[in-house]
Structure formats: C-alpha cells, structure tokens
C-alpha cells in the first residue's frame, strides 16, 4: 500500500525573518516569569541586595520602553529548534537560514557582536555568527524556534563532571554547590541553575542548557527530581552570595533539573549557570 503525506514547504527567508525578530525581541524584553520572580524576590531582600534587585527591575523597564538591550552582552546566539518532520525548506538549508537571520538581526538592531572565528586566534566575525543550532526532529509540520542569547560571564561559570555512580545524589549536590560557590559571584546573580544529570559527556551539557528554557514556577515532572530542585535552590540560597555576589538571601531564582538514562559506569553531571538576565523567546512557523 502506498502512503503519501503532503509536505509543507517553508521558505528559507521566512526562517531568517523570524530569527531576525527573535534576536531583537529577546534582547529587549525580559520574559514575564523572570520579571515576576525578580519582583517577588526583591521583597525578601534589604539594603544593597534589595537596591540591586530594584536596579535590575528598572533596567528591564528602560530596555523595554527604549529598546536598549537588557545587557551589553547580547550573547552567543543559541537556537533550539523543534523541526516537524513533514517540512521541507525551500531556498537554503536550515543552518544558513538561521545564521542569515542572526547576522541581520544583530546588525539592524545594534546588538553587540560577541563571537570570534577561532578560539585561539580570536578575530571577531562582526555579525555574531555562527549561531549554535540544536535541532530536534518532531512529528508534524510546524517549526518551533527558541532563541536563548547567552552571556559569556555566566557561561564561564558553568561546569561538567563525570562522577562515579557511587557518588549518588550527595555527589551531585556537592558538585553543584561547589560550582556555584566557586564562580557564582562572577556570573551576575541572582542566578538560574540548569542541571543535566545522566546521558553521556555531551548530552549532560545539553540537558543542563535546555533546562534553562523552562519557565520559573515549573517543576521536573518526576516528584523525586521536583523535590531535588527545591532542595538545591534552598541550599544555593544559603550560600549568602546574593545579588551580584555582595551577600543576600537570594543567590538563585530557580533550579531546573533535566535527566536522562546513562551507562552503568557513569554519572555525568553538568551545571549551566544563567545570569538574572535570562533572555529567551520562542516563535512558531
């Protein structure tokens, strides 16, 4: 029996235009859940820490009304794409379509170009490309593009470790807390911690990074890891690092854990630290 399904054609330029707009919007508008969390947590602080929370909230208002980037570090351009398998792209491949949108979006909106072409030679590419593009193939004929511009300061505070399985939850917890203790102050706290547990060396990092796409208030669907998210948040906030590392009750706004099955010999764990300027925006084509 012959089965044929119609393929939806998406033009490359439509992807580029969507990406271009995402670049601007994500850098000007702080997501509602982040702003809400900042406002709630500002109430828990006093003195310098409270003043910093209020500066962050005021900054978000200025950025929104005047269309000034929230942070001068408009980030490396990270894209998480859910690509419906019944889609064909006309006029260019998906990677060049996204990169074209990034180049235009960063130039036209006066966003900072923060990418060098070679990690050792370090020459600026002057258009913020290439983007980091992660694609998931899913059912359907839609294309969902999520943009996460990521600043270098918080990215540098991130870490990955291959633990022995015997380390268990206590080992994971120690690793996460020592990573935050060591470099959290430099990563523009209040932070969001994306934690990836399991998979392999590469996927632990990916799990940690994609955990940052979750909204504040969401919880891991497993009740075990949901509780662990709360436990880590409480422990991180006991470190007294505080807003900008100057001390305070709130060092992190949220902890998100993503898990995956792994090898019998391994317990990979990664923490991807996100600054308070957690910029992310999704569009569907």
């Amino acid at each position, binding site marked *: 029996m012959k089965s044929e399904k119609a393929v939806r054609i998406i033009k490359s330029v439509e992807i580029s235009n969507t990406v271009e707009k995402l670049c601007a919007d994500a850098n000007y508008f702080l997501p509602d859940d982040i702003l809400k969390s900042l406002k709630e947590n500002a109430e828990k602080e006093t003195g310098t820490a409270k003043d910093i929370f209020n500066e962050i909230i005021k900054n978000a208002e200025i950025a929104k009304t005047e269309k000034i*980037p929230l942070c001068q570090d408009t980030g490396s351009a990270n894209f998480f794409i859910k690509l419906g398998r019944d889609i064909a792209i006309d006029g260019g491949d998906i990677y060049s379509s996204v990169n074209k949108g990034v180049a235009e979006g960063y130039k036209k909106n006066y966003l*900072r170009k923060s990418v060098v072409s070679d990690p050792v030679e370090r020459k600026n590419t002057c258009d913020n490309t290439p983007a980091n593009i992660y694609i998931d193939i899913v059912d359907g004929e839609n294309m969902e593009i999520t943009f996460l511009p990521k600043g270098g300061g918080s990215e540098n505070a991130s870490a990955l470790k291959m633990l022995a399985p015997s380390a268990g939850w206590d080992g994971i917890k120690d690793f996460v807390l020592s990573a935050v203790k060591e470099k959290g*102050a*430099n*990563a523009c706290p209040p932070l969001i911690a994306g934690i990836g547990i399991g998979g392999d060396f590469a996927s632990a990092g990916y799990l940690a990074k994609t955990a940052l796409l979750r909204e504040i208030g969401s919880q891991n669907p497993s009740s075990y890891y949901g509780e662990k998210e709360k436990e880590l948040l409480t422990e991180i906030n006991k470190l007294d690092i505080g807003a900008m590392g100057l001390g305070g009750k709130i060092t992190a706004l949220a902890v998100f854990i993503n898990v995956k099955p792994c090898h019998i010999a391994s317990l990979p764990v990664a923490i991807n630290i996100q*600054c308070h300027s957690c910029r992310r925006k999704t569009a569907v084509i």
Partner: protein
Amino acid sequence: MNIQELLLNIEDIKAGQRILLSGTIYTARDAAHKRIIDILNKGENAPFELKNSAVYYCGPAPAKPGEIIGACGPTTSARMDVFTPKMLEEGVKILIGKGARSEAVCDSIKKNKAVYMAAAGGVAALLSKTVTSCELIAFEDLGPEAVYKLEVRDMPLIAAVDSNGNDVFKKAEV
C-alpha cells in the same frame, strides 16, 4: 563623586561604600588589556594616560543612530586579574567591573593605593543613561573590545576592594 575628588581622597573610600561616580573613564576588556600590556612590555605608550586613570571592564553594544552609546554594563573582572597588577603599577587608580578579584589583585590594589568598584551586571540599559559622551580611542579592529573614552555622570557603583585591601566579596569566597 567626581573622579578628581575621589583621587585626592582615595584612602578614605571604604569597601561597601556606595558611590555615584562622575568623570572620565576608559573601557578596556580582555583583548584591549592584552594589547596594552604588550605595548607596555615593548616600552611604548598605552593609548591613553594610565596614570591616575579609571578603567572600566566593558564592551559596549553599538550606539543606535542619534544615541551616545548602546547598552554598556560591566564584564567579569576576574578575567582581567592576570593583567591588573601591571596596570596598577603603571598608575591606574580606579578599576570598575563586576565580581570578585584574585588575592594578587587585592594585594596590588592595597600596595598601589587604588580602588576596585563593582557595578551591577546585567543592568546595561540603565548604566547607558549615565554616559554623557563616548569617543573611540584605540583598537577599532577589536569591535566591542576597542578602547572608548567615556564621560559618566552619577554612575552607580559600590567600592568592592579599597586601598587597605578590604574586600566585600571575601565572605562569598568560602
């Protein structure tokens, strides 16, 4: 507080003190520091007078047409730690950035009677409002890492490491 006034009374600045800073500051971050140190090592002159200067670890976003500057918050100071003692020996008096500094930098700040001030990171739109002029001074090819001469008015800062070596980040570094 005006920078000239601050320089005259630099030893009175105490870690933890809030300061609204006004005056001339120069941006320099990773790549600019590397170049400046290379220039100094060759016995040549830095692109601006380092003596009594204020250096801001910042790579601004480009200015929109008609604007003075784009978003311009601080970058992580710790990456400049390897260059900072040399900069202080050359006479830089005010360092501005975000986050904690190394022991060696704190010692050098004390020895050279300088001060490190922290600005809040990620409030770059707000900080851009304190900049009243911006001029490209050197290293244009470095893009956002070029050196810009900025005039700032009431830039909100916190003295983080004072001239006695007191450090507000100490308790966070367990």
